[in-house]
């Protein structure tokens, strides 16, 4: 797509601005929604509906003492939280929010997304390692193993979409869904991608790297202030990213009836999945680490491969 992008920098700035704010706003959304699910009030004092809690939280995180434990590996300790934010933000480059609103329509957009989210594993390993704390180390080891295994079928589950649309470009994938959203032919792929996405963002029920009741805060136990804030924001941007990807790959991206503009459709669909992420957190217990691995390798991987083969066979059959 060679659309003229006179406001190229505007889009970059816009995406950056919106994403950071969405991530911050999600703090409020999550806390209010969780409270709603759990029969309590949640933050409701600061500003209307407690909205200013976002400001309060950010101010608190920004002005906390920038503390690096004396036993930590300083440069790595500082680098780790930056990686998570950078990789997630970079992934947003390839997301088509609406026709023309995309930073870069790469012809390998999907691969770029996979590459970037894989890089996120570094932040966990490095953060846990540099903290020089046993809880962090355990969390980091769990996190690394979890992310690497779930990477495998996350990538494979997407291949069904690629087969159907014949492209790695996210814009073309969206365009290919004009007739039928891919979540119908690719329902298995969608479910697996969703599960892998939760594991990738290590949210409950897959929050094993930070399992609060076991490992306190796992890999970021030693972090505080804005460095903790970056892990925090990174997590929220992570679930936003996964929601965006689900919408783009399986739910027709910006496509929708004409009475609303494309960008609004995209936002609505994404919000829907964000809510599901939060609802999941309110309702599920956490499996054990080895159970999670077993589930991944013994259930999800064969299923993904099967899905890929069936899809390939069907595509081949239809084209002939």
């Amino acid at each position: 797509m060679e659309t003229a992008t006179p406001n190229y920098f505007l889009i970059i700035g816009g995406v950056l601005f919106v994403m950071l704010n969405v991530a911050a706003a999600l703090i409020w959304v999550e806390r209010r929604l969780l409270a709603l699910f759990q029969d309590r009030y949640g933050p409701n004092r600061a500003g209307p509906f407690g909205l200013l809690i976002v400001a309060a939280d950010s101010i608190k995180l920004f002005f906390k003492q920038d503390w690096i434990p004396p036993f930590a590996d300083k440069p790595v300790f500082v680098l780790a939280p930056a990686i998570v934010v950078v990789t997630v933000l970079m992934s947003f480059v390839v997301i088509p929010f609406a026709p023309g609103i995309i930073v870069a329509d790469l012809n390998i957009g999907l691969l770029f997304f996979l590459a970037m989210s894989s890089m996120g594993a570094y932040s966990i390993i490095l953060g846990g390692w540099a903290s020089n704390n046993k809880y962090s180390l355990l969390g980091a080891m769990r996190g690394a193993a979890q992310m690497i295994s779930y990477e495998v079928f996350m990538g494979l589950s997407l291949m069904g979409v690629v087969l159907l649309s014949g492209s790695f470009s996210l814009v073309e994938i969206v365009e290919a869904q004009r007739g039928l959203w891919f979540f119908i032919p690719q329902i298995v792929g969608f479910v697996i991608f969703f599960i892998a996405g939760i594991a990738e963002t290590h949210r409950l029920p897959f929050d094993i790297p930070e399992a609060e009741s076991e490992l306190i805060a796992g890999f970021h136990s030693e972090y505080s202030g804005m460095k903790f804030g970056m892990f925090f924001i990174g997590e929220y941007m992570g679930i936003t990213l996964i929601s965006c990807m689900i919408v783009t790959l399986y739910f027709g991206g910006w496509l929708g009836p004409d009475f609303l503009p494309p960008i609004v459709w995209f936002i609505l669909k994404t919000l829907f999945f964000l809510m599901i992420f939060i609802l999941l957190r309110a309702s599920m217990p956490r499996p054990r680490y080895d159970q999670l691995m077993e589930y991944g390798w013994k259930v999800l991987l064969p299923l993904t491969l099967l899905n890929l083969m069936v899809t390939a066979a069907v595509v081949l059959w239809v084209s002939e």
Partner: protein
Amino acid sequence: MENGTSTLARLQAQFGEDTFTPQSTKDDVLTLWMPHDKIVAVLTFLKKEIPQPYPLLYDLTAIDERTRKPNNGHIPYAFTIIYHLLSFERNSFIRLKVGFRDEFPTVPSISSLWANANWYEREVYDMFGIRFTGHPHLYRILMPRTWVGHPLRKEHPARATEMGPFALYDEKVDLEQAALQFKPEEWGLQRQSDDSDFMFLNIGPQHPGTHGVLRIVLQLDGEDIVDAIPDIGFHHRGQEKMAERQSWHTYLPYTDRVDYLGGVMNNLAYLMAVEKLAGIQVPDRVKVIRVMLCELFRIASHLVWYGTFAQDVGQLSPVFYMFTDREKIFDIVEAITGGRMHPNWFRIGGVAQDLPKGWETLVQNFINYFPKRLKEYDAMVMKNSLFKARTKGIGIFTLDEAIEWGVTGPNLRACGSDWDFRKKQPYSGYEMFDFDVPTASNGDCYDRAVVRVAEMRQSLRIIEQCLKNMPEGPFKSDHPLTTPPIKKNTMHDIETLITHFLGVTWGPVMPVGEAMSCIEATKGANGYYVTSDGNTSPYRLRIRTPSFPHMQMLPYITKGYTVADLLSILGAMDYVLADIDR
């Protein structure tokens, strides 16, 4: 309940006529003095050889006898060690006493005979300075290792004002800091095995998963637990020492705080013992009121356990729903007693006040409301496949192991036993109620949960029966030792007035003697063993709590599991730190 003569006859046939000196007590438990060279032989005989044996070491404690008023022509021992054994088949206790004349006696250890004797003997050593020969690890257990003196000895000061001003010298700082250094060897742990170096992970004393100030030293190989050593005592407040300077009446509020989720249930355990001493029979209305409140607290305690257990395995929401329901129970408790968690509402010989007007509606509303919620929780927690995956087959112990380690309550019933003191040795009128004792058979974390959830339904049944059949009558017994005394008995002449005045100010004087109570508390068998030398306060008060032996079992049941399983095991155990440390 008791068939003491045959036990005594068997023992005498085995060890000789003169070996045992029976003593009469207020609680009708067969009490025998025995010489200290026969301790191990007699206990082995009682555990293994006698027909219908006594397999459970219910309690092991000591008394410092040195300041006791001479009475009954007892031999003036300096210290007495007391063993309480329980036989399930006979449905009776036996109490064995051994007297020592030394200032710092040495006793043969029975830790090889009963697994749970280990911690009890350490506690006796810690509290009395009595040494046990043959004990594998005789260190302090509740007090810090740097502590000087043994708190339950009578010469040890009971309050800070008796101790002189506190000073922290440099040497003391160095000493305390050195004591904080972690050396695996001091805990009986190896640093490495043949093929790997172990990692030591310190869980607690401040950790979101331990539900209180509990420290567990984990020896890990990867994430697999090689050994887990609980370090307790952070919550030790000297409940037993405090009893020795409180009056019989003013000690009541302290009992509330032992199992702080059990509320008035602790009052009951204490009062059962005191009322046995005093010979008070409480009116029926008092019995039923007490049962109703105890069962309300059982539900409240189980709700806390339910929610936090779900949270331990990662489920965030149930704890909020369950605490909301617990609030509803506290609304009733508050209307009746004025208090919430620690109502301190039972009194010697009765309860503090009669039930308020309209209590029936409150209780009825709760009875209507709660079963629906329990059903919802079943769907949310118990039937959840992830919850099952985290708890089924985890932390298994068999019935024999449970008895060996002194496990009681729901944890015991999850192994298949139907032992419930409310049924087997009914107290406070439980024999009048119609309820079942839920059991399970696998003895894993999930089954412990099954039993507790079923218990809540049974408690609700009991409460409903209390509501329907609440007897009329006084809420205090008409007995001279009832405290506070009944007002109408006072305003006759100066004598009755003085009696009342003394009963309220000094508190009642309990007759000389000793008695033990045993109730089915929220977490297992809770018992108070009180000894009176005819004074206004107990000479010695021993609190036997269920959590103490349960926690002792932790290393045994966690070996080979992972860190995540440890949290399931801890959650399913349902302990309260105050109940462990007292």
